[in-house]
């Protein structure tokens, strides 16, 4: 349940919606819980950005989260 994935904010749309990049997937997420700018990284959980991350942190952890996430979906 508490799976969360780092993603880069590509675009911010009206109504607190952001287009984010998970590395191999782009998706719209809700930005209600964070104040972010384009180019920053966020941690995404159940379709919401739940925390802001530094760019370096985001890139560093993204791959591993993806592996764990893939394993959970098996």
């Amino acid at each position, binding site marked *: *349940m*508490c*799976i*969360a994935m780092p993603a880069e904010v590509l675009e911010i749309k009206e109504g607190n919606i952001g287009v984010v990049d998970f590395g191999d997937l782009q998706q719209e997420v*809700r930005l*209600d*819980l*964070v*104040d972010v700018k384009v180019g920053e990284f966020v*941690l995404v*959980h*159940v*379709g*919401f950005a*739940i*925390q*802001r*991350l*530094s760019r370096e*942190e985001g890139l*560093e*952890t993204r791959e*591993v*989260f993806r592996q*764990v996430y893939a*394993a*959970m*979906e*098996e």
Partner: protein
Amino acid sequence: MAVGKEILDTLHALVDRDITLMHICGTHEAAIARAGLRSVLPERLKIVMGPGCPVCITPQGEIDAALDLVERDCTIATYGDLLRVPGTKGSLESSGGDVRVVQGIHKAAEIARREPDREVVFISVGFETTAPTVAATILSRPPENFSILSCHRLVPPAMAWLLGQGEASLDGFLLPGHVCAVMGYEEYERFPVPQVVAGFEPEDILLGLLMAVQQVREGAHRVENAYPRVVTREGNVKAKRLMYEVFEPYDVEWRGFPVIPASGLRLKPEFEGYDAQKKYDIEIRHVDKHSACICDKVLRGIARPSDCKLFGKVCTPRTPVGPCMVSHEGACKIWHLYESRRA
């Protein structure tokens, strides 16, 4: 895993007594099992899983309440994990009702907007990681045909119960990284026991274990942060504020536990129009468990999945008897996937 090897070597050198550490996070259990960490840890260091899977700790009475809502012809939207959890009379999956899997609550609210003739109820499970997403959605004022069944739980009250009760003889805790990403870890500082916030890579978890073991050896108790790239002491202040704007804590039962004071979240009176329990006058009843399933003991950290007579025989991911075999974060399902080699 060079860093991991170094940490592991240090860990082997440091563990000179029996130490039991509990994590309270299904995502930790999945990462530990997937990396096979238990098989490389020192013999005297035991990692037990606590009540860290929100689907698993949702009591049967709340699953029955969701099934009551199906009977009243509501459209049910929820996470896929919840579908197969057995209630008294079947599961959401077998109910034959209009049950839809959604990514998150915002998608359930979209269904309500798109289908104004349907009554849409979101079965809202999750710890502090998830509750703020629900709060944000409620604050966006979804349409009147939308409501939630709040099954939310808070981690620290369960820790307080476990520590007060003492049956699992725990020497320390790995704190859930993503709960703490939102909440920070200040509220854990009141517990006089070694605690380390840990991330989800094998190295993160090993580092968390190492820091906890060091505290046990020192006889210290403090909260340390082994996941600083995501977690800060104060957490996400905005998310916390929204959560407490919408929800208030109340006393509630967990599966496997008695009623734990102030451990659940319910909508505040000003949002009760979105409270499915009030809207449909649903009563949540206590249901005594009566199968041989030991999910309750697994959730309290006093039994392992493989201690259960049903495990892997009657109870499998395809034919789950208890919730721990249903959820991707349930200890039994995870052990069924990865752990059969470890006695």
